[in-house]
């Protein structure tokens, strides 16, 4: 076996340029496959992680009129929910663990230390939010039912805001002047907590809210009517919970309106689907690249066999069996592929930060995939397996051709 390997290497070194080019060919193919598979696997892993950590049992419902058109659909959402409805939901459905309302105020200002700031976003919500969203409160505590009912002017700020406004001291107990919808009417809020702006998918839901206040503690813009209620069900019972709540509010849906749910998992499935599409799209290129490099191996091995007709003839004459000739050629093809694969994976590993992070993630509008990086072990494994298979498969035909040459003819002259 070792002799066999040594022989293979000697053959490869006899034509160094050809060997190099072949390895390069395979390497390029493996490089692109590894990168694309990595993106796909990494993204899927992340989505699955999110799904299990809080997405699975989360849904929202709204009352709306959905109209389908030839070119798409439009949805007109009504504001039909009140704060009391949260209690109503919890009382009437055994499947619901908690419910909350989250209102995004995308234009809000604060004044601190005599400076007025525009906030990236403000969220007004109810007490169950923290629990349902696994919000990590770093300092202080989240607001309570009483805070919500009494419309207390208390506020939680995100870690980012804390770093900017209170870099050295604890903000708890301090006050911030807040105005929603960027009016000039400010009111003082007491800071009761700091929370961690968790991962990007959470951010997507929070719509980049950097401070949280009790739902009706600011001037309610919609009166006290809200368009959406979020429901966190008991584990695995999200469809039942949604069913209960739909029945509960069915009477409010008038005319063409219906109670319509959105499952968090749907969002994730949708994102998974779009990542799959991107992977499929790019994977198509990778596939073609692999096909091309396979053909490359096939043709170069054929050429190499033809060139070595004489050598093969001598070996046959010296007693090598057909099988050992086949083995020798396939060996060579696999080794070439493996070295190429090693090179390709190495290149992918070196370039992955740039390729995966900066290019793909930012380009395909998937901010939620921020921080994604590194080669996925499965991707590496699949690439390696793929190359061995390709090497063996495409080495087979030249190997058989080599074995079929009669030793006499082969010795006479290289004719194929």
């Amino acid at each position, binding site marked *: 076996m070792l002799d066999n390997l040594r022989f293979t290497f000697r053959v490869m070194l006899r034509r160094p340029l*050809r060997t190099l*080019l072949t390895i*390069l*060919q395979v390497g*390029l*193919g493996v*490089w*692109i496959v590894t990168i*694309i598979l990595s993106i796909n696997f990494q993204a899927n892993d992340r989505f699955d992680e999110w799904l299990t950590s809080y997405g699975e049992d989360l849904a929202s419902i709204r009352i*709306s009129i959905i*109209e389908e*058109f*030839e*070119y*798409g659909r*439009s*949805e*007109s*959402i*009504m*504001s039909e929910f009140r704060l009391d409805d949260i209690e109503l939901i919890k009382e009437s459905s055994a499947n619901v663990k908690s419910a909350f309302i989250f209102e995004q105020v*995308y*234009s809000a200002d604060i004044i601190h230390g005599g400076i*007025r*700031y*525009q906030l*990236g976003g403000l969220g007004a919500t109810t007490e169950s939010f923290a629990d349902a969203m696994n919000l990590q409160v770093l300092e202080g505590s989240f607001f309570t039912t009483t805070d919500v009912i009494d419309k207390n002017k208390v506020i939680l700020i*995100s870690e*980012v*805001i804390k770093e*900017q*406004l209170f870099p050295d001291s604890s903000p708890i107990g301090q006050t911030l002047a807040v105005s929603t919808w*960027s009016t000039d009417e400010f009111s003082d809020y007491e800071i009761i907590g700091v929370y961690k702006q968790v991962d990007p998918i959470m951010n997507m839901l929070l719509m980049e809210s*950097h401070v949280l206040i009790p739902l009706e503690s600011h001037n309610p813009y919609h009166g006290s009517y809200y368009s959406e209620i979020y429901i966190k069900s008991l584990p695995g019972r999200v469809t039942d919970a949604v069913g209960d709540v739909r029945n509960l509010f069915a009477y409010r849906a*008038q*005319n063409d309106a219906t109670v319509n749910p959105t499952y968090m998992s749907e969002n994730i499935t949708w994102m998974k689907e*779009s990542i799959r*599409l*991107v992977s*499929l*799209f*790019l994977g*198509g*290129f*990778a596939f*073609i*690249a692999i*096909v*091309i*490099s396979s*053909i*490359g191996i*096939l*043709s*170069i091995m*054929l*050429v190499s066999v033809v*060139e070595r007709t004489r050598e093969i003839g001598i070996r046959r004459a010296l007693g090598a069996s057909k099988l050992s000739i086949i083995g020798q050629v396939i060996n060579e093809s696999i080794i070439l592929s493996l070295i190429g694969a090693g090179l390709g994976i190495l290149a992918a590993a070196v370039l992955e930060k740039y390729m995966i992070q900066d290019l793909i993630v930012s*380009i395909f*509008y998937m901010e939620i995939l921020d921080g994604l990086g590194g080669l996925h072990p499965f991707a590496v494994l699949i690439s390696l397996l793929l190359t061995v298979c390709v090497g063996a498969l495409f080495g087979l035909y030249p190997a058989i051709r080599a074995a079929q040459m009669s030793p006499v003819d082969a010795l006479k002259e290289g004719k194929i």
Partner: protein
Amino acid sequence: MLFTDKIRWAFRHSRRRFFESLLIVLTIGLGISVVVAILGLFSHVTQQQSAWMNDKHFRTVQLYSADSFRAHDGSPLKVVPMIEREKVDFTLDDLAELKNSLPEGLFVYIQENTMLRSKLLAGDESEVTISNISGSGGVEFGGSFSVTMQVSEEITEVTTEEIIEERPSSLTSFEDIFETHIAINQITSDFITFNELELESGTWFTDKDVDDGNKVIVLGSKLATQLFEDQDPIGKVVPLTSHTGVEYDFIVIGVVALIHDDLDESFSGMGFRSEDYSAYVPLTAVERSYFESDELTFHSISIGVSFEWDLGKAIEVIETEVNRYFGGAVVVSSSYASQKETEQMSKKIGLVIGLFASVGLVIATINILNLMLARVLTRTKSVGIMIALGGNSASIFSEFLLEAIILGLFGALLGIILSFGLAKILQLLVLISISIKLPQLLIGIGLGLVVSLLFGVYPAYQAAKINPVDALRIE
């Protein structure tokens, strides 16, 4: 050797190693097909993009009062200068002033849109109010290329500002509204010039009509047919009910020529309807909607930038003039920056896709290089004989190069054929129609040539370097 002989010779050699040549052609073909298909996709996307860019909508700049206008850049915390700002309400005088001071090719106008009920439509008597239609999200396009399809922001803006304070008793669908209401554009004269609206019959209203608030109306082509069928609409009366319930009679003075003859009513999704269903009245002819004060003030002025202007340059000119006139109390808002950003983004996407797409072609070229080198090696003796029979290094070089080029061209040909199939598959995947046209085909053939030249030269050079004496010695 005559050129035809050389070509015949090259074909002979390629045919002799038919399988190998086939594989070369196949690899080049595959490589080129991917590139051509992707180029087809790119050309479609850029075409669409430039069509959007050239849309009048994107060449319109809005002036807003700075006190209420906030640019939202998504940063968590941004310092806001604490200057007491007065709200600027634009008046018709402001409009006239700006019109005078801005150079040619910049059209200054005020446009407000509203939906007004008309008894002419469905004869509906019930009290239907337009309530909070918060048009959620646009058309859903499949795939990941919805990037270029963002629906303009202005559309949603209008609706959020017109949300009424009392809670609606019921919600009306778009369909219902369109059945009883007419989409009214309240405009000033520059709107007409900028949008180059042609009349089918009648006349446009004048500046004086705008100043006096005359109740005249110009109908969209399809609206005219809908209201009056085959009768001549000019001079007819269109009754409109204002938001406070007052009825006015508007006299039809013109009909706009058909704009979208291919666009059907069904495009009313997303809350617009074809412009052919809307009507135009002097800005001042209709009672203002809920929020506006009863004075003749307006919350924004629009400036249309004609095509002779470079948009970036025009925005600079407008900003200077606006700052001079309003002194920082007014902001100039346009989609120019985001357009540029989208453009940049598409370029970046194109680069990555192009990179991935061309990997196959690169592999294919390495493959030819490898195989052509091997060919030179096996044909060493043959080269020796050729030289003995009267060949020289130049002729040997050109023979081998020609062989590579012929393979490359066949590869390109195959690539072009394959690219059509690939385009079909891609179309299913990204849901964008891909058109492969002459330029892409030429690029495909060019690529085949370049690839074969690039990687045929070195082997050909190797062949030309062969020493005939040594070559002839090979048995």
